């Protein structure tokens, strides 16, 4: 009788031990944990009302770059730089030409006659068929070239390291600088927290520059005088969030802005006045914490986004 009691007790004890171990094992698994009071969910900010999405992704072109960095469109050709090369690609995806360099380009701009390839501290000028014409090397050690545009024989170079826009003639002679300062207290000059400093001319020939630290786009005369600006600083979809957005921008043929943001990656469109129009591509389209896609617009207003994380050119067309 006594032995039966001991055996019964040991069986109960064994069952209890097994149960405790099993419960503890399951409770310790990451997916079995109770809700974390400190979790910070940013998903609500990445959700987009589908009614706001005005474009659809029509096709993707795989590109042979491990680290694509910049894109430009001119005529019927796409110019893509990255790694240590530039590729000229037809919109169909057919590779037309490839030019190699001894360092990694940061940006590219194709004018009617020339191709300007920006590196960290230098610029190489090529003919449209890829033959090297000149090298511009007269930049300071702290220079970080992030964008190039050209208008009426003057080349505008965004220098994120020095936080200025440099102007050059076609033969490489310095033509002055734009510091972005004005008498208006609200405009401080260019605030560039990270190497994202873009500039472009719209179809009316007006120079627009991103001031990423202010979440603003600013219009300057070619002499460097501030003409107008608009700002959209907000975590909401209508605005730009984070420390340095928009990272890239381009213009539709009607003068509307297309902007690309880093951090919470999204591509949006704004009216020429700066009023929010809608969304081109929602954050769900991109790799989380990836790179802001550089943008190029073709003559029909179709948007090419250079997705450096998925290593492809993504084409967005209006719905």
């Amino acid at each position, binding site marked *: 009788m006594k032995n039966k009691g001991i055996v019964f007790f040991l069986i109960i004890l064994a069952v209890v031990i097994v149960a405790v171990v099993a419960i503890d094992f399951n409770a310790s698994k990451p997916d079995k944990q109770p809700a974390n*009071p400190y979790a910070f969910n*940013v998903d609500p900010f990445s959700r987009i009302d589908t009614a706001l999405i005005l474009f659809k992704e029509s096709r993707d072109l795989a590109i042979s770059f491990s680290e694509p960095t910049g894109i430009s469109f001119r005529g019927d050709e796409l110019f893509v730089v990255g790694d240590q090369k530039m590729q000229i690609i037809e919109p169909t995806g057919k590779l037309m030409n490839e030019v190699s360099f001894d360092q990694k380009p940061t940006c590219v701009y194709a004018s009617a006659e020339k191709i300007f390839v920006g590196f960290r501290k230098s610029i190489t000028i090529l003919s449209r068929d890829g033959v090297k014409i000149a090298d511009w090397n007269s930049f300071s050690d702290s220079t970080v070239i992030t964008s190039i545009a050209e208008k009426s024989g003057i080349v505008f170079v965004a220098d994120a390291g020095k936080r200025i826009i440099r102007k050059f003639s076609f033969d490489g002679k310095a033509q002055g600088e734009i510091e972005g300062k004005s008498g208006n207290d609200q405009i401080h000059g260019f605030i560039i927290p990270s190497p994202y400093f873009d500039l472009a001319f719209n179809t009316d020939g007006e120079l627009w520059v991103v001031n990423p*630290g202010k979440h603003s786009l600013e219009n300057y005369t070619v002499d460097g005088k501030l003409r107008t600006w608009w700002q959209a600083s907000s975590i909401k979809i209508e605005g730009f969030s984070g420390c340095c957005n928009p990272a890239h921008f381009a213009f539709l043929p009607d003068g509307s802005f297309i902007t690309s943001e880093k951090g919470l990656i999204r591509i949006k469109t704004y009216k020429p006045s700066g009023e929010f129009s809608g969304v081109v591509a929602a954050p769900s389209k991109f790799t989380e914490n990836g790179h802001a896609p550089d943008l190029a617009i073709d003559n029909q207003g179709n948007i090419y986004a250079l997705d450096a994380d998925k290593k492809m050119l993504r084409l967005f067309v209006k719905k």
Partner: protein
Amino acid sequence: MENNNKKSRRDFIRSGTRLSILLTLGAVGGIAAKHLTAEKYVWQIDPFKCTQCGRCATSCVMTPSAVKCIHAFNLCGYCDLCGGYLKPDANKRSTAAEDQLCPTAAIARKFIEEPYFEYVINEDLCIGCAKCVKGCTSFGNGSLHLQIIHKRCLNCNECSIARLCPSQAISRVKASKAYNVKGSFTKDSKV
């Protein structure tokens, strides 16, 4: 003469004992020397694998957690609108508690010059919840990141956070390279 060359039994035992002691001492010394010179390992977070789930605050055996936020100042934009400091829906960009993302007000916002602000972590207040890291990674440059602070860490045989980390961001690293600080530690670094 022959008898003189023969060792006595006593001498044999004496020599054997000496040799045994010598060998034992040598072995103990060797093991001790090896132990002293061997590379030690500690637990550390890979900031590029961390998904800022917040478990470091609640899973560490230490209270508060030995995991703290650290700031790579060379990556910071010194922004007025800091995604790591301010709540996304903050009323304004101020130091008001209602606008701060950090639940323990462990980040000090210091004005440098218009419009730049410096963000400094108070390690004693930080609980390693990673809310600021998530905000900085999602909206900023990613300069805020988590690290295990070794003067606070017990270096348990089995790290209770590592066991639960959903992204397996915590692993043993050499004590000589005990920190994976962003800026000097890059995504492609080999630990």
